[in-house]
């Protein structure tokens, strides 16, 4: 089980949250000129790293705010939490 520190409400049980997948995926700026391959990359391709992963969570059964989490996908340790729009903090490896 994960215990996720919501930046607005504090630590809460995983069951209160909804998972939003990989963070910082930018939508193509100019849809008209974006190639099929670039659309596929945006829509479907994922880093899916073994180790540190920056991802989005939403406090669905709490404040309903979205935020970012850096989490290790092997140990499930949550390294850091930061708000939407903030740059990812530098974290020691």
């Amino acid at each position: 089980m994960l215990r996720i520190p919501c930046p607005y409400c504090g630590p809460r049980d995983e069951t209160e949250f909804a998972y939003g997948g990989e963070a910082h995926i930018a939508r193509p700026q100019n849809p008209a000129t974006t190639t099929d391959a670039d659309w596929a990359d945006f829509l479907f391709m994922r880093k899916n790293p073994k180790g540190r992963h920056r991802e989005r969570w939403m406090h669905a059964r709490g404040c309903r705010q979205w935020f970012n989490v850096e989490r290790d996908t092997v140990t499930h340790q949550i390294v850091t939490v930061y708000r939407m729009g903030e740059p990812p903090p530098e974290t020691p490896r």
Partner: protein
Amino acid sequence: MKSYSIFSLLRNALSYHQNWQAAWRSPEPKPAYDVIIVGGGGHGLATAYYLAKEHGITNVAVLEKGWLGGGNTGRNTTIVRSNYLWDESARLYEHSLKLWEGLSQDLNFNVMFSQRGVLNLAHNLHDLRELQRRVSAIRLNGIDSEILNVEQVKEMVPILNCSPDSRYPVLGASLQRRGGVARHDAVAWGFARAADARGIDIIQNCEVTGIRRDGDRVLGVETTRGFMAAPKVACVTAGHSSVLAAMAGLRLPIESHPLQALVSEPIKPILHTVVMSAAVHVYVSQSDKGELVLGAGIDAYTSYAQRGSLSVIEEIMASTVTLFPIFSRLKMMRSWGGIVDVCPDASPIIGKTPIRGLYFNCGWGTGGFKATPGSGHVFAHTIARDEPHPLNAPYALDRFANGSLIDEHGAAAVAH
């Protein structure tokens, strides 16, 4: 390879079973092979077997970082069926089911394939209509499938709570009688033994750490036991597919999630078929040892740890007890997780990559076990001929760019 038979069993009984030949060798790796298969699970070993059997390619190594079948092959709930909605899926899974039907004889290894039937329950009118649609589509593809009304379901599985007052009332079910279960370890062992007998090197405790290439051509793999050269490298690594792809500079449309399962204490025979409910994410069967084998849905987050969260187990147990009140006092003995490679359309990727000589077979998500022989069969064809078999041509990686997805998410692949 000495053939297994009633006579070999009797002969070995005379020496107290001390002199059985090892089922496969543990050879030293050679510096070069014609084909290297990364991943010694069911799919990888099946690929090796069919490469040798169907295409006469035997200078092949199967590299496994742990032990054979220690990944998802030994962690699933062993359900085999082919009742998929879309034509592409129906053809691929039915091809696999037909191979299952002769597999024990083909491999000279009892994979304990038991066609005890697979029931998919409907809990509301929409479920029922969706099952009707699916059954019609499946039958049009020449695959056995039928609809049972609630009386027929009750007769088949008397312990199922079919009361209209239940939280999940049962309105009917679809039934594939040719579906069933198999012994998952035996599938890995059987393919390994048969592949080894044809001269294929199975190398365990050998992890691939890099994929060496020259421009857009693959040269071989770096491993914990040194470099091995091969003009063709085939990756069949399930939950670790993205990791292997990254070694070759590729990106895949895959996310790795934990998928959990559990078994109860053994009890006398009480459930003679497989009962699945996609709506509440329960699938349950009883093993020959008497344990109930239950599978859950995936954990929401991505993970490479072979474990998930307890809340998922609680959910599936709550649903199971609602459907089968008689199970409420059973103790659960073990639970575990596997890492499944989930594709956005819940269909696998089987085919070539932009790098010449590099092939991927991945993205089976929560439902790869049933496809083991068929997947190996068409993948071997893809590697040997350097072009896909007609059955796996629709499963190319480029379907994500050209939009021809095979969307089984809402159809059949949600529960396995």
